């Protein structure tokens, strides 16, 4: 199924209007490839497991989960912005951990990794969680990471939306 999706995705960006949006976004972010590589974006083991739970071709269940996730992510990003303004590192860490969990549950690799970084840095530990950081350094890093995670999220959102649009009735 993954290869089928890859093919579909590769054809869709060529055709639809959405294509321009997503390619714009990707060029803005990475400046490299025009087409999003789904393998890197999504962990298919996890995502397949999610789709497996769908009762029928409708993907009703998984789609509703994904929509839930979109809402949750948007809300978390807003909260993160607030927390960053208030320079509240512990809150940022908690939010990072929170979003990391649900991203991992759906299988969004990049978002999950960045959230993990935010969580660790918010705890004043470096990205892998070993050494410790100064507060200003931590804030600085998060200031850079936040737009990155939002961009990665957008990428994933686009991909998922197109996936469900194709598969839908």
């Amino acid at each position, binding site marked *: 199924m993954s290869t089928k999706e890859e093919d579909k995705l590769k054809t869709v960006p060529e055709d639809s209007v959405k294509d321009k949006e997503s390619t714009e976004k990707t060029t803005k972010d990475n400046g490299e490839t025009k087409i999003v590589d789904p393998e890197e974006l999504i962990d298919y083991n996890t995502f397949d*497991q999610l789709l*497996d739970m769908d*009762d029928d071709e409708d993907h009703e269940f998984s789609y509703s*989960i994904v929509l*839930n996730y979109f809402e949750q992510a948007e809300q978390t990003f807003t909260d993160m912005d607030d927390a960053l303004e208030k320079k509240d590192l512990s809150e940022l860490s908690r939010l990072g951990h929170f979003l990391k*969990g*649900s991203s*991992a*549950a759906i299988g969004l690799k990049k978002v999950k990794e960045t959230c993990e970084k935010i969580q660790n840095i918010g705890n004043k530990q470096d990205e892998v969680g070993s050494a410790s950081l100064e507060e200003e350094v931590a804030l600085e890093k998060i200031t850079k990471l936040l737009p990155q995670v939002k961009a990665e999220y957008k990428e994933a959102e686009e991909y998922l939306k197109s996936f469900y649009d194709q598969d839908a009735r």
Partner: protein
Amino acid sequence: MLDPTLPDPSASSTTIPTTTTKTVTKKGNQQGGTGIPDFVKKLFCMLEECIYPHIFSWSAKGDTFVVKDPSEFAKVILPSHFKHSNFSSFVRQLNKYDFHKVRNPDDRRRRVYGDQAWEFQHPNFKYNRKDLLEGIKRKATGKAAAAARAANNNDTSIDGSDTHRHSNLSSSSLSSSNCTKNELKEMTIKLQEQIQKIQESQTKMSSHMQLCDTKYNAIVEAVDRFRNNMAAQETLMRDIMQHLMTPITTTASSTSNDNNSESPPPEMQKLLQTYNEVSRANTDQMNRISKLVEHMQNDSVITMSSITTSATTTTAATTIPSMGPLAPFNFAIHNNTNNTPTTNNNITTTSLNNSHQQQHSYMPPYPVTTTTPQQTSIPPSMPLKVAMSSPSLRRKSNIPGWSIPPRVLLVDDDLIFRRLSTKLLQVAGCTIDVAADGLEAITKLGSGSYDIVLMDIMMPKLDGISATRNIRQYDTWTPIISMTSNTTDRDVQEYILSGMTDVLPKPLDQRTLRKLLERYCAHLKAVRQGYYGNNNVIEGAQITDIIENNEKGKQPMIATPPVIISTSSFLDSMQTDTIQLDQHQQQNQQQQQQQQQQHDQDNSNHRWQVFVNNSHFIPPTSQPTGQIEDDEVTRVWKKAKLSSNDD
């Protein structure tokens, strides 16, 4: 010794050490030398009054009582009789008096009482047996002495009711020896009655089992007959088609079902199409039914429920297509002829869409006797999934059958995660309850019982570790599994210390979850051998009772009934007859249990294995946790984890 000055509570309390005095002080007055603790009396009266039979009543047999609705019970009944309205305190009290929770009662009982029912049993607590109540004592030293004393005193009082109630020492001591003989005789009669009743109920049960067995056999026979009928019908239809085809089509090939040429008229084609689909659907249906019947012999009744649910849901899900002209690509599937009625690998979606029209008419009314509402969540997609890929059908049929679906409490603050895990657990055949944080989890555990708890660590209000600690204060048997992405050694140590039974890393993986469920809910798996023919389910309940016994109080491994009259003081009085009768009764019960145990040694061994594995995870709640113990526990956990990963 045999102190006949019974109405004096202080006298009885001085002759018996600490336990009775504790009872007196803690539970209020011991009335009239009857020796029945106040709590037990209250309980008995509550049951006798039976004001709220839908919340709290005796079981059908009268040897246990059931709290059908713990939350209502805690809200309504507890405050009016006791000073508190906490169900877990009530349970604790019951445990102190050596009541045992009946775990995993057989399917029927569970269904009757509901999934959140708590059933408690005490050998001396039976419907209308007030006389046995004094056998119920606190689980402490000298319990037997207390029981003996109480029994003695009571019997003496019954016998010498008229003359001895207010008499003085000297005269009563003379008559007491006579009384004891009579009282002993009475005891023996009572015990004999008990034995008789037990035997009667046993014969009733076995006859009931036989009845179920015959019913089941009848069903199997009916399915067989129906299968044969279908096959006959199919051959008939095939003959008809052949006859129809041959005179009309001259240019068509000799095989009646080769329809790829354009010569057969469109009506013929339509007819053939529909016939093909019908027969395919029939074979599909038959295959499914026969497969399910096979499964029935091994598996539990879950498959039955899935048939009925699949029937209902699939007719709801898909529209009944008309018999009219279908898409041209149907021609391609005509090659899948009906000459091979046993193939099920080439079935396509369209055929199934049509099959629903037929499905209802061929669906025999299976008596769905044992399903709970939650069981309908077991994949209703089975027939459709057959279309997709038959391996997927097989996978889902291979769900380990649960004789009772495990009741899971899922605690996590993330809505998405809760929804995902709920779905996963449903697919695995469990019933799920959710809590959003530690506080809610504690509340739910206080008012309900679960077979396993999945607890997130990071949560608002009350985190997983603190919640577990709190729960472990009054519940040491429910497995609590922590779900987290932090699985470093230190974290694991912390979890185990707080009372967690195991660790499940996030994000959830279906296989790991399944393994975990099998591990901790092994006692709920369908008993393979003759669910309909043996007393295995009862035996299962007994064995888990043993396990429970051990988990709670670390008692000796034999599940002996608590009616033991074997203290030295009683023996001193040389009343050996009664003792022997009692022991005989014990032995009877023991023998029964042992026989049933031997019947199913494998299962019990497996359960012992589970228990042994689990026993490592029961934290030493009363001991201060030293450094050495931490490491040991973690090491053991790791070892177990490694071995389970190797499976």
